[in-house]
């Protein structure tokens, strides 16, 4: 085994041991005029002394170097998907320094991840707006114009269908209602369309005294509601959904709860890695809000989003 591959403990111990053995041997083999019997006793003394020193050396070294092992162990267990974890700065000067630097690096990584996620989100929304505009303004209007000029029924029907599809896609991408009529109207429409297409019964509880939100916050609430309902339609197998918008402490709280299958696992922590739900979490963070997903009181899933009120 190559020397440099040995763990630190064994390297230091080996060096110390070599020194101690050499010193002992030197002592033992130095020419000395001693009676043979005394030489044996002295030899035994030296041997025992050596063993004791070696043992003490090993134990002390292991104690001093243990924090490094612990640190390595902890570093291994850090999970970037759960931000906020930091290692307590114990141990000697060097170990504490190392831990501190490691924690700083974690901080930088998390900040960077957050920033790039938010950049991606902003780019996505801008893109959606562009596509929706293009669809609505260019494609939709041209089709409408064409429809009004046609005489052949069959062609008209085909154009009508195309127009319906364009309309549906545009609406999903950019909820114009949100801009014109506000969050409550947009969510009412969203939930009604969901009820129509999925057959699930929807109960709406929208408070009338909601504080006003910034445009970004309203869009975040809308998107989270949209994503939640999509998930329910796809996975939940639910029969009843409640969607609520209530005032909080200088904030607005959205709740979407269903009575479906729920999330597998004891504490819904499995959802943290799921793409769409991560997207919701990022949206919440982007507007300074907080998202929580847990097991609902009716057995299914409850999504709770709280966003701060007022302009940013």
């Amino acid at each position: 085994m190559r020397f440099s591959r040995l763990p630190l403990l064994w390297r230091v111990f080996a060096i110390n041991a070599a020194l101690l053995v050499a010193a002992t041997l030197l002592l033992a083999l130095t020419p000395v005029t001693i009676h043979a019997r005394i030489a044996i006793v002295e030899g035994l003394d030296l041997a025992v002394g050596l063993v004791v020193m070696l043992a003490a050396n090993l134990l002390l070294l292991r104690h001093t170097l243990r924090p490094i092992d612990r640190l390595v162990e902890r570093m291994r267990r850090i999970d970037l998907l759960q931000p906020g974890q930091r290692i307590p700065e114990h141990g000697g000067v060097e170990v504490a320094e190392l831990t501190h630097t490691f924690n700083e690096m974690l901080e930088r990584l998390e900040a960077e991840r957050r920033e790039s996620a938010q950049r991606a989100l902003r780019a996505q929304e801008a893109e959606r707006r562009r596509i929706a505009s293009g669809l609505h303004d260019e494609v939709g209007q041209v089709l409408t114009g064409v429809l009004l000029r046609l005489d052949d029924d069959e062609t008209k029907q085909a154009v009508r269908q195309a127009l319906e599809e364009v309309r549906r896609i545009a609406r999903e991408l950019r909820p114009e209602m949100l801009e014109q009529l506000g969050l409550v109207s947009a969510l009412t429409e969203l939930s009604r369309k969901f009820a129509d297409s999925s057959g699930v019964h929807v109960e709406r509880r929208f408070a009338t005294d909601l504080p006003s939100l910034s445009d970004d916050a309203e869009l975040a609430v809308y998107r989270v509601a949209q994503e939640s309902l999509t998930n329910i339609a796809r996975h939940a197998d639910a029969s009843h959904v409640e969607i609520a918008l209530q005032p909080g402490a200088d904030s607005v709280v959205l709740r979407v709860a269903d009575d479906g299958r729920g999330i597998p696992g004891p504490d819904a922590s499995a959802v943290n890695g799921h793409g769409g739900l991560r997207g919701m979490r990022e949206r919440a963070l982007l507007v300074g809000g907080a998202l929580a997903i847990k097991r609902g009181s009716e057995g299914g899933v409850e999504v709770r989003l709280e966003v701060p009120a007022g302009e940013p």
Partner: protein
Amino acid sequence: MPIPLVTRILVADDHPIVRSGLKKVIDAQADMEVVAEAEDGAEAVKKALKDDVHLAILDVSMPKTTGIQAADELHKRKPELKLLMLSMYDSEQFLFESLKAGASGYVLKSDADQDIVEAVRRTMRGQSFLYPSAISTLVKDFVERGRPEEEQFDILTPRELQVLKLIAEAYTSKEIAQELVISVKTVERHRQNILDKLGMSDRVELTRYAIRRGLIQP
């Protein structure tokens, strides 16, 4: 106010191709004519106030001043002017907000070719025009939550009740005619009577109904 021989119409939409298409359909009728056009809400308000116009068709999604904002302003400043909304969106929210703002009707662009003429005529007669699936939804909502107003069912004739149930299930007039073995014209007549009796043919009544039912905020 007596219905004019030729209804003078202003068309407001930010897309020339839509305006020209509507003009073609409207001008082909003897009793209506497009006399003014506008590209956005602000221009629509200006022209509608100034010109001798009986009815204004406003696109819901216009830049600057939106269609609903324009409708609101026009309704306040020239209440005798009739207003029809035109939209890409089959949205009850937009529909009821439009009615609240003063519009008499809401026409979907995807059906504008066949609905706009009827919508204009009904509006000039003082009736409302709702796109068909909105009527189905309204009626369905009425039927499903009918408990406290069960007595309303008594004022409908048995035949009208039959038609009501089919409307609630989103049958078209043609389908209802086939189902009940009557003419389409008869179906339309029943439909109008039902809406009248249920207080849903007038924009004021419809708005009140929608607010009562929580379909929109007051």
